[in-house]
């Protein structure tokens, strides 16, 4: 029995931050000393290579590994600055025509032999791509944003993960805007965790540096960035490793007279 943690990073809805989270958590875990591999399971629209800045170094992919036309070591792309991290790139989109859950399980079984963490970047949706990826996972991190469509889609995915016996399933709340939350113009952290009934693994504040870092292909966690998102991803990685790191408090992000006024306005009067 392998002690590898194989974690599906999924969301249902597209564009909520699955790939960004996979890249940043991968780097953060590797920096904390864990041998980590990120597996791009989005064969249709692969992007994990681009966010990690590894797009020019791909020779072989998961496809050649499955076809046994290359060894796993040949397909794995090692990160230059963070040698504890490797990427197994997604194969050709035509793989989707024949790829089955057992194929994903076979790839993951190979990876589990040599890594402490296998992070699977799941495609959006709840169709075959999701089902293949979920079949290979032991546990899952569901990413959502405090928006109705993202929360609804996350709920569908959580239901499917429960029926597949993936356990534990934890939540990351992404793109939190503390100001909108304190104005009650955005679902609060409690609203989302109440509705989805999942333990909160972390929350990530909306942060422009995420866009800057993807432009460069250098995930925020790669440097000792003080940006809020970099800290949040670092914290999430530590919590995954079992450390007890307190959650950020959106209401603490904003203080002063206006915040106190807002608090007064939230007082229950009857």
């Amino acid at each position, binding site marked *: 029995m392998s002690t590898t943690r194989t974690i599906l990073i999924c969301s249902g809805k597209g564009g909520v931050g699955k790939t960004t989270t996979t890249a940043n958590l991968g780097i953060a875990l590797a920096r904390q000393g864990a041998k980590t591999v990120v597996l791009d399971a989005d064969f249709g629209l692969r992007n994990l290579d681009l966010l990690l800045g590894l797009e020019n170094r791909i020779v072989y992919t998961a496809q050649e590994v499955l076809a046994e036309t290359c060894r796993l070591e040949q397909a794995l792309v090692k990160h230059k600055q963070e040698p504890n991290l490797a990427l197994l790139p997604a194969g050709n989109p035509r793989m989707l025509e024949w790829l089955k859950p057992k194929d994903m399980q076979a790839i993951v079984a190979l990876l589990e032999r040599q890594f402490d963490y296998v992070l699977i970047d799941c495609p959006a949706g709840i169709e075959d791509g999701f089902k293949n990826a979920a079949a290979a996972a032991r546990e899952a991190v569901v990413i959502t944003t405090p*928006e*109705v469509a993202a*929360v*609804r889609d996350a*709920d*569908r995915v*959580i*239901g499917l993960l429960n029926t597949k016996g993936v356990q534990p399933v934890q939540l990351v709340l992404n793109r939190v805007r503390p100001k909108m*939350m304190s*104005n*009650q*113009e*955005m*679902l*609060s952290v409690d*609203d989302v965790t109440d*509705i*989805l*009934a999942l333990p909160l693994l972390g929350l990530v504040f909306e942060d422009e540096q995420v866009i800057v870092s993807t432009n460069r292909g250098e995930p925020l966690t790669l440097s000792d960035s003080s940006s809020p998102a970099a800290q949040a991803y670092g914290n999430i990685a530590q919590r995954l490793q079992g450390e007890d790191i307190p959650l950020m408090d959106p209401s603490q992000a904003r203080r002063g007279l206006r915040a106190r006024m807002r608090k*007064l*306005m*939230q*007082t*229950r*009067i*009857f």
Partner: protein
Amino acid sequence: MTLKDFIDKLLRRQPASAETAKERLQLVLAHDRSDLNPELLEQMRREILEVVARYVEIDLAEGDVSLETEDRVTALVANLPIRRSIAQPSKGGTL
């Protein structure tokens, strides 16, 4: 009700959207999770009322059958005010 809600009401302003979002989500998720579309739910509601009406006289206008959800558990909640019981149901057990 919070102080803000109260002032909003006085000024006839719309409530903050987070509350609206939460209410809408809870409703839509109750349906998503039960896999019942509104049509089927309406049919079930009618049939439940029919069965109950065989035993007791219910206030159809006040009656309400809906789905509620909490902690990923969805419950069918029926609130059927009884006007009076019907003395002898057509076919009864020994109870």
